[in-house]
């Protein structure tokens, strides 16, 4: 019997998701033994033409990590969608837009100006920006178009399942692969992770006060963190109460507050708004000025609460007067 064919592809991502696949360690041999990897540019030398030659839906499953922010990424995921039976958004960036999604706080022009002109280490007196096409003696060379708005994978193509996390925890990848190979898949659109908040399963749960009264917010370097006590109660901005579990509490075990990479549970529409609501409600003051002062310690609310999910949020991106908010 022929083995199921599998593809991996990355879009706007850091490479951590590919790392997570390699982190399967010896289990990756089982995966390799069970499937045929037909496309994995980061590890194996296959080209786009190889994918184009495949029949429609010939790939049993394709894992895509990274957000979509260029015409090239969009063309590739559209092609892969056509060639795949199951398409899985792998990791925070493809699930919710991820860290690259924070680019939605700016527009394309501002990002290019910053990268190619304003950064203090850049010397570019003629103001040369990357061109989409350029004439050279050998002919025309082209680059993909950079979009104004970063998008999550399901905002551009149809997605069957989501593996959340930055990167997805190895255990969840194993479970997902086992479920796919065994044909035991849940309803389409499911996030392949537990649907409980991290706070519920946190090893520090017992030390969480019944009603935390947050009087100040601290950043991890500003205090010596107690290794046993609830991080929120210590004044750290831990987002465990608003975040899906399934990560094995990796950050919390490492004495770092949860930053929300697993995204929301199924009951939440907008992760950032919900996390903001949870944290702000716990401020231990009723005085308007004092509340503003306490919350003022959160230096960057948008970057904090939408760290991994700005493109998938209700607002998607900054609203530029007169240009529309999409």
């Amino acid at each position, binding site marked *: 019997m022929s083995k199921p064919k599998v593809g991996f592809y990355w879009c706007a991502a850091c490479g951590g998701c590919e790392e997570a696949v390699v982190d399967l360690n010896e289990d990756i041999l089982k995966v390799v033994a069970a499937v045929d990897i037909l496309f994995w540019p980061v590890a194996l030398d296959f080209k786009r033409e190889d994918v184009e030659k495949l029949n429609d839906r010939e790939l049993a499953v394709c894992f895509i990590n990274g957000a979509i922010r260029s015409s090239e990424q969009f063309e590739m995921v559209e092609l892969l969608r056509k060639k795949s039976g199951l398409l899985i958004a792998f990791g925070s960036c493809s699930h919710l837009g991820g860290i690259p999604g924070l680019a939605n706080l700016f527009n394309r022009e501002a990002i290019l100006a910053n990268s190619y002109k304003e950064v203090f280490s850049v010397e570019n007196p003629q103001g040369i920006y990357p061109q989409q096409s350029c004439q050279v003696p050998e002919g025309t060379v082209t680059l993909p178009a950079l979009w104004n708005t970063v998008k999550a994978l399901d905002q551009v193509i149809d997605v069957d399942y989501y593996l959340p996390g930055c990167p997805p925890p190895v255990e969840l990848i194993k479970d997902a692969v086992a479920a796919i190979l065994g044909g035991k898949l849940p309803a389409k659109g499911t996030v392949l992770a537990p649907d409980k908040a991290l706070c519920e399963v946190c090893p520090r749960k017992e030390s969480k006060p019944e009603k935390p009264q947050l009087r100040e917010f601290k950043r991890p370097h500003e205090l010596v963190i107690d290794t046993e006590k609830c991080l929120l109660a210590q004044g750290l901005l831990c987002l465990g109460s608003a975040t899906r579990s399934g990560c094995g509490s990796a950050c919390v075990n490492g004495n770092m507050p949860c930053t929300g990479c697993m995204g929301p549970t199924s009951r939440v529409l907008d992760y950032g*708004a919900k996390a903001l609501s949870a944290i702000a409600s716990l401020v231990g003051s009723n005085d308007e000025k004092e509340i503003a002062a306490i919350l003022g310690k959160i230096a960057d609310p948008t970057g904090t609460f939408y760290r991994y999910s700005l493109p998938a949020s209700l607002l998607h991106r900054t609203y530029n007067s007169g240009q529309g908010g999409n």
Partner: protein
Amino acid sequence: MSDKNKANSGNFEPRIVAFFCNWCTYTAADLAGTARMTYAPNARVVRVMCSGRLDPQFILMALREGADGVLIGGCHPGDCHYQEGNYKTLRRFTLLKRLLQDMGIENERVRMEWIAASEGDRVQKVMNEMTEQLKKLGPLHLEPVPIDTVHKKVEESVAQAEGVKI
């Protein structure tokens, strides 16, 4: 004629979603009605049991679904029927305001007011004020975008990008 022009020519009627607390502000709006106070009809009032019921998601959703502004009305501090629901509103709103600012949504578009049950005149004043302010600001361009139109938008943005010196 674009929305912006409409706003300038004075034809633009802002849409306001007003979330009023059952015990104070909604009663005040009722009072304004029975006292025949007239005010701008731009707000769609949603009665909630407490302003503390207002999930920030509701506010973003209202803006996403076409509101030009959101008005939140609750009891004065200390007067909350549920002891401290309005304090929670105050805390959330303080942080949400900063987030909205980051997203480029003007402060005037989302407004919180403490209005007691007896302050019908305050409802009238706030409604009129906010409508005027939004008229000046013009429409908020946050149309809901169904997934099937995204493809079209993407094609458009690729087409737009073509030939643009980036």
